[in-house]
């Protein structure tokens, strides 16, 4: 069905506060406390107090029931609108979309959004946890049609898409390496990134295979990490501490039939989510100066570059091999190092980085020069949920 995304939301709201927690290995701090840390940093950044917040939309590990209530209690916040999101890694952008809709509907004025997880701590507390490398609670894991075949984890699920793409379009692991190496170069310019050492093609090739076609460096990090942003009306934002980052458009799509159905593993939900966001913003891929894409695995970046129209379907390999993703390239992407090399926070740090780029926060070594438009993506659930956010220059 054709939808008609409203242009009435364009540039009405803005991100006015940005924060993140300590990233990487933060043992002994719960996912909730990491998120509180990020949220307090976002409030300080905006020059706002908890009493200014009347909306709270957030998410944490899947076993934290009523997550928004736990966070509200810790921050001492009551809210006109508050809920926990359930759209996997697409939740974080969707929470910002919901914030805009709530503000425009008059349900709230100032909405705090965020996500926090303790995935490093969770997968390293015991040897068994390390072997299984599984962040989902046991009760939510499949009981059939998977474990009996030795099928476990998100690496394999995404690797199916990578293999199919390689078959259809001649994409290679050399292409995936370009993505991992570009983001590692960016991470080296980011003092808070988990990965501190350069990554060479030889390192990539020598690394052990995890679930082929993915090797170690195709896979994102396990991180304890949280990020938060504050959304309010753009006109109200004028009185705050930081220049407002305008929200120009957003989109969402969900291939609910499943990752294994149709062609969803090679033409992802990013395509329709992106079309919606472009329409709302009145922009197209040619207008985007920097992309912050959900990089749980290298291949997901490659397919999203195609799905968002930065190149044609099947040409993602050539696009990344051209050096386009690097700072100074045609489309500097994941300028923080992304989830592959900065820290994995289920897309929340992509939002944080996109907003900071739009504020022109950084020195020349990391700032995308003259950037006016940032496109940010969220991907998750069981690989089928997707959301898109387009921000303008502050």
């Amino acid at each position, binding site marked *: 069905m054709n939808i008609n995304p409203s242009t009435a939301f364009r540039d009405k709201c803005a991100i006015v506060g940005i924060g993140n927690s300590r990233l990487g290995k933060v043992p002994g701090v719960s996912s909730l406390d990491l998120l509180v840390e990020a949220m307090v940093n976002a409030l300080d950044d905006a020059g706002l107090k908890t009493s200014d917040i009347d909306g709270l939309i957030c998410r944490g590990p899947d076993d934290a029931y009523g997550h928004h209530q736990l966070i509200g209690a810790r921050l001492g916040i009551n809210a006109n609108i508050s809920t926990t999101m359930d759209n996997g890694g697409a939740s974080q952008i969707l929470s910002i979309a919901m914030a805009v809709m709530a503000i425009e509907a008059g349900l709230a004025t100032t909405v705090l959004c965020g996500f926090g997880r303790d995935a490093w701590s969770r997968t390293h507390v015991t040897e068994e946890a390390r*072997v299984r490398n599984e962040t989902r609670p046991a009760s939510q894991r499949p009981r059939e049609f998977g474990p*009996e075949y030795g099928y476990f984890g998100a690496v394999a699920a995404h690797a*199916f898409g990578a293999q*199919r793409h390689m078959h259809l379009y001649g994409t290679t692991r050399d292409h995936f390496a370009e993505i991992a190496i570009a983001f590692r170069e960016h991470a080296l310019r980011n003092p808070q990134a988990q990965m501190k050492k350069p990554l060479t093609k030889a390192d990539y090739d020598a690394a052990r295979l995890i679930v082929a076609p993915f090797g170690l460096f195709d896979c994102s990090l396990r991180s304890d990490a949280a990020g938060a942003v504050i959304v309010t009306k753009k006109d109200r934002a004028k009185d705050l501490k930081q220049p407002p980052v305008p929200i120009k458009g957003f989109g969402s799509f969900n291939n609910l039939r499943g990752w294994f159905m149709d062609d969803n593993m090679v033409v992802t939900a990013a395509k329709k989510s992106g079309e919606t966001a472009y329409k709302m913003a009145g922009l197209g891929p040619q207008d985007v100066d920097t992309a912050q894409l959900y990089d749980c695995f290298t291949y997901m970046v490659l397919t999203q570059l195609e799905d968002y129209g930065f190149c044609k379907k099947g040409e993602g390999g050539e696009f990344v091999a051209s050096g386009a993703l690097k700072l100074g390239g045609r489309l500097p992407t994941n300028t923080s190092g992304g989830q592959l090399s900065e820290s994995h926070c289920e897309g929340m740090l992509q939002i944080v980085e996109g907003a900071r780029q739009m504020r022109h926060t950084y020195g020349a070594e990391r700032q995308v020069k003259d950037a006016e438009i940032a496109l940010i993506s969220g991907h998750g659930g069981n690989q089928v949920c997707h959301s898109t956010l387009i921000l303008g220059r502050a």
Partner: protein
Amino acid sequence: MSDASISDKPQKPIPRPSPESAPYWEAAAQHKLRVQKCNACGQHWFPPSQRCPHCTAADFSWAEVSGRGKVFSFVVFHRVYHPAFEGEVPYVVALVELAEGPRLLTNIVGIAPDEVRCEMAVKVLFEDVAAGVAVPKFTPA
């Protein structure tokens, strides 16, 4: 069961059927591959559910299928995520598209992992994994 068959070796997970999937596993135990077929629109579907995802009809039968299909995509596990698979790596997990349409997650056996290809023709075989439990796997046709 003799004492010799009891060991501390980690066991591979045995499928734990839901009420919806029980007929699938009962058929598999008899080395038959059955999936649901809609009596309204005629299409097959998998995984099991109580209404046809093509037309929402609740009228279906468990139809035996040809057991023939092709590899839609596949992955090769090198990492051991479960101790029972320690001696199995590298092994192939594939998504097989049956001739009748549905796609099944499975293993490809009887071929070296680096020789498996997308679109390769495969056929079903059954591996008995416990008393009264068999798991369908696929091998080159």
